């Protein structure tokens, strides 16, 4: 079957067998190997990518289900100007050790910050609950997400702030997402 997705801002197509997962499409057909094949059954989060604004396990989605959608992978974060604040902070503070879980953790964090620009520690923990890391103990990741949130907010101009939807205060009791 033919599948067309917008991946990291670029429209790309491939002809793949129907049982192809989004992860295989990205890694083997588009050669975007940032998303990792870990458990391959949705437990570890190493394959996390953002589909239409939502963090998902690329191993649990068929390529056909992603047809026509917008996908962001770790390769889509850095720009000509440099690394994304999350990447920069994670690198500088040692939030990653072996690094295998890193692309998934960073994409989960990116999806969180896109939705909640200034998350609480509980919201960060909730957002990262589906990303297993066997090296770091998570603490530096959580601190890193806080730091990246600050960096992103300090670089945000008032004009772009105005376009962001504020979190609904009445619903603050339950963590978002």
């Amino acid at each position, binding site marked *: 079957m033919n599948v067309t997705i917008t991946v990291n801002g670029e429209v790309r197509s491939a002809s793949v067998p129907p049982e192809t997962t989004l992860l295989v499409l990205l890694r083997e057909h588009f050669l975007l190997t940032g998303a990792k094949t870990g458990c391959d059954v*949705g437990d570890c989060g190493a394959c996390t990518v953002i589909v239409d604004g*939502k963090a998902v396990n690329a191993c*649990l*989605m068929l390529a056909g289900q992603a*047809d026509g959608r917008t996908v962001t992978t770790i390769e889509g974060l850095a720009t000509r100007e440099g690394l994304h604040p999350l990447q920069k902070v994670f690198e500088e503070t040692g939030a990653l050790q072996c690094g295998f879980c890193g692309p998934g953790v960073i994409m*989960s964090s990116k999806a969180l910050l896109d939705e909640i620009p200034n998350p609480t520690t509980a919201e960060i923990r909730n957002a990262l*609950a589906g990303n297993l890391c066997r090296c770091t103990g998570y603490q530096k990741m959580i601190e890193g997400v806080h730091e990246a949130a600050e960096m992103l907010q300090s670089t945000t101009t008032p004009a772009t702030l105005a376009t962001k939807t504020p979190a609904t205060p009445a619903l603050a009791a*339950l*963590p978002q*997402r």
Partner: protein
Amino acid sequence: MKPFGYVAAQDSEHAVALLAEYGKGAKLLAGGTDLLADLKLTPHPPPAVMVDISRCADLKGIAITEAGLRIGAMVTHSEIVNSPLIRDTLPALAEAALSIGAVQTRNLGSIAGNLVTCVPSMDSGPTLLALEASVTILGPSGRRTIGLADLFVGPRKTSLAFGEILVEIVIPKRNVGKPTGFQKFGLRKGQALALVNAAASFWAGEGLFTEPTIALGAVAPTVIRAPKAEAYLAGRPVTEDAMAEAGRIAATEAKPITDFRATADYRRDLVAVLVKRALLAAHGRATPNRKDIAS
């Protein structure tokens, strides 16, 4: 994965037509979080054709209708967590959805998928059962509506006939806004299956337990109600002692098994604790005149 065919259904009618066309070789694909993982792990041959209903627009949406609160079959757990309507009227449903898997699986997995997979530890089951939800089923011979309890037959077994699909879950209007609590105990906070989960719901008119319902997960072949504990509470003054006693009675109604996660005795003890906590949580949400607002 072993090769299989794939076809995306346009809407629920199309999905039913596709199931009829492909017969026994066809399998419905909803969120895929259980099915695709199973297909990778199982030695059994895959279905000939996967009928993808995850993007059928008529299976989406959360709304108040004539019948009550309607949740489309393909609504994801994240959509339930973030629905202002659900957070406002039945926050226990949002809590239950938030306790499922992790963000990534909640963004894909659907409420109907959770129900139809029919594992006893499903987290969507207890709250919906306590709220006396019904499900609408579409098949070759048309639509039918059954109580949620009648959907559950056994572990991984529902009463859906071949060729039928679950299209919506409806919480009856009389129970929209009913104070409800949900409790789950797993071995970790994230991505853990419930050792036991429980939901409880009641109106507290004039300080008495009114229309109390209690539902339990992971302690029987399916999610079950606890009728003896419900009968004990009905008409009794709302006190913490009564809640604790209802928990103890519910523990006698549970039929848990011992497995590698926990023993049957431990699960029975958990039932007593979680039922009491669920009743307390429901009581915390009970506000005077809420029923009048809802009906």
